[in-house]
Structures are given as C-alpha cells and as structure tokens.
C-alpha cells in the first residue's frame, strides 16, 4: 500500500531510465544518505564506525568492483585481493614521493595503477573463457602476492615487511595515521564510496553496462551486434580493478592504518567473491547486501551469544562463520541464485501489492 506507483507517470524517457524511478525509492535513498552523513556521525561511537561501518563500506566498494567484472561482464576473477593490494601499494608509493599532495587524490589515483595491472592480466580473456579465465586470474593473484613480499621497494623497505601508513591531513585535520579519528576517516570513506557507487550506476545503466551484459550473456551474438570483445572485456577488467584498487588503498590507509601483504592474499579474493555471489551477481545493491552479510556475520556471531551470556571464543566464531558462509552459499544457489538482491526485489514487489497477496 505504501509502495505503490499509482500516479507516478513518467513523461519522458530520461525519467523512465533514472536510477530511482519510484518516488518511494527516492525518499528511501535520501533517508539512507541522511542517516549515513548526519545521524551516524552524531550518535556513532568508535566501535560502530571503525569496526562496522568503515570496513562495510570498503568491502562494498570492492564487491562493486568484482560485481562489475564477474556479475555484469561475466568474467570470473579470483584476483580481487591482489588488485586491492596494487591499489594499496600504489597509494603508499605515491604519497611517499609526493607527500604534499592530498591523500584523497592519491587514493583515487592509485585506482589507476590497479586498472592498468588489471587490464594487463585481462589480456588473456580474448582467448580464454570461463573457468580457464579464473585460473589466469589466479596467476595474477599469486604473482602479485609474491611481488608484495619480494619487492621491498613497494613497502618502502620497512623492516617488518608491512605497509606503514604515514600521517596525512585534509584541510588541517588528520585523515590517515594514528591520530586520525574514526569519524574523519568514516566521512572520507563514505564520500568516496557514495560518489563511486553513483558513477558505477551510471556506467551500468548506459551503453557500457549493456555491452558488458551482452558479452556476458552471449559473446558471439555480442560480436555480431558490433561489440568489440577485447575492448569491452579489457574495459571491464580496468574499471573493476580501479574500484578494487581504491578499496584496497582505503583499507590500508583509512581503516587498518597499516598492513602486511597477507591482507591481500587469495582468501580476500574468495571473501569478496562470496559477497558478490550471496549479494547478487549483476546488481549494485547486491554488493552492499553481500558485504553486510559476510562482513557482519562473524561480528554478530561473536557478540550475540555474548549478549546472552554464552561467550564464544573468537577462533570458534571464525570457524562457525566459515561453516555458515559455506552453507549460505549453497542454500542461496539452490533457492535464489540471484542472491539477496533478488530477494529484495521480490520483497519490494510484495510491498507494492501489500496487503493484498497479488
């Protein structure tokens, strides 16, 4: 009853093709943005911002990146962790060489390095498809992991082998480094993620998104319609890696505050892939759902039993997470291969006609 579109007529095509064609959706997104930008900073504590919201946003961005490549363009990639790493190390080197430049600019720019590396490792996609391409991305993953450890220049020759994040400021306020407050970091991450999500939604609704989906659905037919396969696939790798690179840079600079190479190991690739599968392949909102579920699940598993007086050891919580995530993936693939995003769509559909059944 609340969700009806009655009376909302589109009078031009632009309105029909808008991101949120329905008024209730527009109100909804405005509310969410209000909560995110205003309410949470006012009421949020360190834990909420640092341990929940910031990583959720960062993983959502990485999931969007992978979703563009695997969900929209149909190119399975197991190299997400490594591409995130390229962004992080690129950011470190950029800010080491040019410390006076605004760190946010470098975070975004580091995405370009990831994009280049991603496109390079995407070259085989012209000849190779499906599972085989996944193995090619594994080559990228393991090779880059090796680079992160064996090329000391990348981590500024630090003795520990880890990235040490220097202090950087934005308009006089510390943004990275130990003195940056979680609120500052949260607002920076939030802004970047909101803008990049908007850009991603522009891409997928337009010509490029259609080209990717055509290649995904039937690349032979895509060619016959005049789509150039190699360019389209390379663009998908480049854009996807850009997003993952920015996410990686934010992860190190705006969340962890430092990192060792194993942060970008293959486990990270799997984690993001699961977010995308459960959240919904080929949807942007699914990236958020998936990140929320997979990231928040272990936290919930640790906290909820503790709230009831039955504490679980962190190791056990982590193992339970593995089991639950594994089961969830299988269950989702059986019940709703299109993931949480589709469930959300079905839910909205039911809302449209509620309280009537159909």
């Amino acid at each position: 009853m609340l969700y009806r579109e009655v009376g909302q007529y589109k009078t031009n095509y632009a309105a029909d093709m808008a991101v949120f064609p329905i008024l209730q959706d527009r109100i909804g997104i405005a509310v969410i943005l209000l909560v995110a930008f205003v309410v949470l900073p006012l009421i949020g504590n360190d834990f909420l911002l640092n341990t929940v919201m910031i990583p959720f946003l960062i993983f959502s961005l990485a999931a969007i990146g992978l979703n563009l490549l695997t969900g929209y363009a149909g190119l399975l990639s197991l190299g997400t962790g490594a591409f995130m790493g390229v962004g992080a190390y690129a950011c470190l080197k950029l800010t080491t060489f040019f410390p006076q430049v605004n760190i946010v600019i470098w975070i975004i720019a580091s995405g370009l390095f990831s994009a280049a590396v991603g496109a390079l490792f995407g070259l085989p996609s012209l000849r190779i498809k499906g599972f085989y391409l996944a193995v090619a991305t594994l080559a990228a993953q393991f090779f880059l992991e090796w680079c992160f450890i064996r090329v000391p220049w990348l981590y500024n020759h630090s003795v520990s082998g880890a990235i040490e994040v220097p202090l950087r400021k934005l308009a006089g306020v510390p943004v990275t480094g130990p003195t940056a407050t979680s609120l500052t970091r949260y607002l920076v991450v939030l802004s970047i993620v909101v803008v990049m999500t908007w850009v991603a939604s522009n891409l997928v609704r337009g010509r490029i998104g259609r080209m990717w989906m055509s290649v995904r659905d039937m690349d032979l037919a895509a060619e016959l319609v005049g789509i150039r396969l190699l360019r389209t696939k390379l663009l998908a790798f480049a854009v996807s890696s850009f997003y993952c690179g920015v996410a990686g840079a934010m992860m190190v600079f705006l969340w962890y505050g430092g990192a060792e190479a194993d942060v970008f190991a293959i486990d990270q690739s799997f984690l993001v892939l699961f977010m995308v599968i459960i959240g919904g392949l080929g949807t942007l909102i699914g990236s958020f759902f998936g990140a929320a579920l997979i990231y928040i699940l272990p936290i919930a598993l640790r906290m909820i039993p503790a709230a009831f007086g039955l504490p679980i050891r962190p190791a056990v919580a982590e193992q339970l997470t593995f089991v639950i995530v594994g089961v969830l993936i299988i269950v989702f693939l059986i019940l709703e291969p299109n993931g949480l995003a589709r469930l959300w769509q079905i839910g909205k559909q039911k809302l449209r006609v509620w309280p009537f059944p159909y």
Partner: protein
Amino acid sequence: MDLPYKIFVDPFVQMGTSPDLLVQTLWDGLVAGVLYSLIALGFVLIFKASGVFNFAQGIMVVFAALTLVGLHQHGVPAFLALGLTVVVMFVLAVGVERLMLRPLVNQSEIILFMATFGLTYLLIGLGQLVFGGDPKVMIAKELYLPHGAIEFKGLGGFVSLQKIDIAAAVIASIMVAVLAIFFQRTRIGRALRAVADSHQAALSVGISLEQIWVIVWFAAGVVALTTGIMWGARSEVSFSLQIIALKALPVLILGGFTSIPGAIVGGLIIGIGEKLGEFYWGPLLGGGIESWLAYVIALGFLIFRPQGLFGEKIIERI
C-alpha cells in the same frame, strides 16, 4: 649483456656441472607432480561424470587426512581409523549428492562451480571446528608406510630419495591403474563413462544418475584420502595444503579436464617444471617463484592452446 647469459646459459651450465643436483631436482619435481596429479585425478573423476568442477577437491584432501589423524588421536587404532575415514568420505559423498547436486541438477556449470566454493568453506570451517586448526602429524608409522631415505653417491655428488616419496609414486600408479581398469572393464565403470558422455542418454538406458554421482564423489573422496595420507606423511596435515591444492588447476589446464592420463602427464609437467624453474631460475628473481610459476606456465599454454594438451578442440556452433 649479463642478464641474457644468466637466463639462457647459466642454468644449463649448472645442470651440466652438477648432475646430482639436477637429478635431485627432477626427482623432487616428480614427487610434487605425482601429488598434484592425484588431486587433479579427483577433479577429473568428478568432472567426467557430473560436469561439476569440484573446487572443494583440495579441502577434501585435507579433510580426509584430518579425519584419519583425528580419529587416531582419540584412540582409534590406525587401520580401523582408516576404515572409518573411508566411511566418512562415503557419507560426505552421499551428503553432497543429496543436498547439493540434486537440488542444483539443472543449473549452469558456473552455479555448480560456485556451490563447490561453498562446500570448500563449509569443510574448512567444519574441519577446524571438529579437529582444531593447528597442523597435525600424519600417522605414517602406524600405517606401515616406509620411513627414511635411499641415498645414492654418484653423478659427482649425492642424491637422496625419500622412501615415502617412492611409496607415493608407486601407490599413485597402482591407483591410476585400478581406476583405469575399473572404468574400462566393469559395469559401473561403463555406466560412469556413459554418464560422462551424456546425462540424458544415460538416463534413457536406465542408469541412475544419483547412484553414479555418489560413486564418483566417493571415488574422488578415496583418492583424496590417499593423497592426504601421502602428502601428510611427507610434511604435515595443515590447512595450507588447501591452497597448494589449487595448483591442480594448472595441471588440469595442461591435461584437460576429462582425461586421466592427462592429469598424470599434466601433473608431472607442472611438478617438474616448477621445481626446475625454482631451483635454476628462481634465484634470479629472488626466490619463491614456486608460488606462481605453475599458474604462469598454465597461462602460457592457455594462450596458445586453449583446450590444453589433451582436451578436445572446442568448436562453437551457433
């Protein structure tokens, strides 16, 4: 001028001047290759019969080994533990068929592939929960597996062959031979080949797909158990094995996804190639190139021969 020499001449000179090291490296490569082949064998079994690319094969190896060791740690005598583990693998096969394969029966390959990701994580979590995450020692002695090494003095130096590795190679060969005979000669083997060829045709002659799938996943489970025992006996039983098992993927690319001889040949090529590469060319790059060399070799193959060494050329019909 120095670099080309280092890449193209020096390694071969080294090979020539220290043949004992070369033989040692070749042997180490062979041993690793045998183990990769066994993992790839499990993949091939399942893929041939059900078209499912079982990403969980690696973790099945770990899980089987863990079960064996875990049972023994709780006081079960070695060979009884072995029997019980076989039963556990059977139960796993039945569970997978009923709860994962049957509900997903008409879905695309990618969906089934992703389901095996879920299975992987489930087994990782379950294994860690039940048996603990720390590395364990394989009960090699209790299973009467050989111990120690055979050492040769010769070829200008010294070559050491671990007896357990020789045993692994022998057992792997026996296993491949048994599987080959099984596929060619028995009724069930014939049914398996029929299912691998065409599910619908097999159904129409009365072959039960479900039974076949249970058998095939069980066979893969037994192969996984054998691999786990051998691998665990050489080093230890730990979850890092799961990542090493990913190396079976380059093996499959070389050998094709449906060829048993392909899995063997591919495994040997990757194993030997990797070890030679690491030993002779690795130092040029700072070492540790084993972690990615296999994948890059496979990538190279894919670019020139997308169907692998043994696979069939894919002709797309529209």
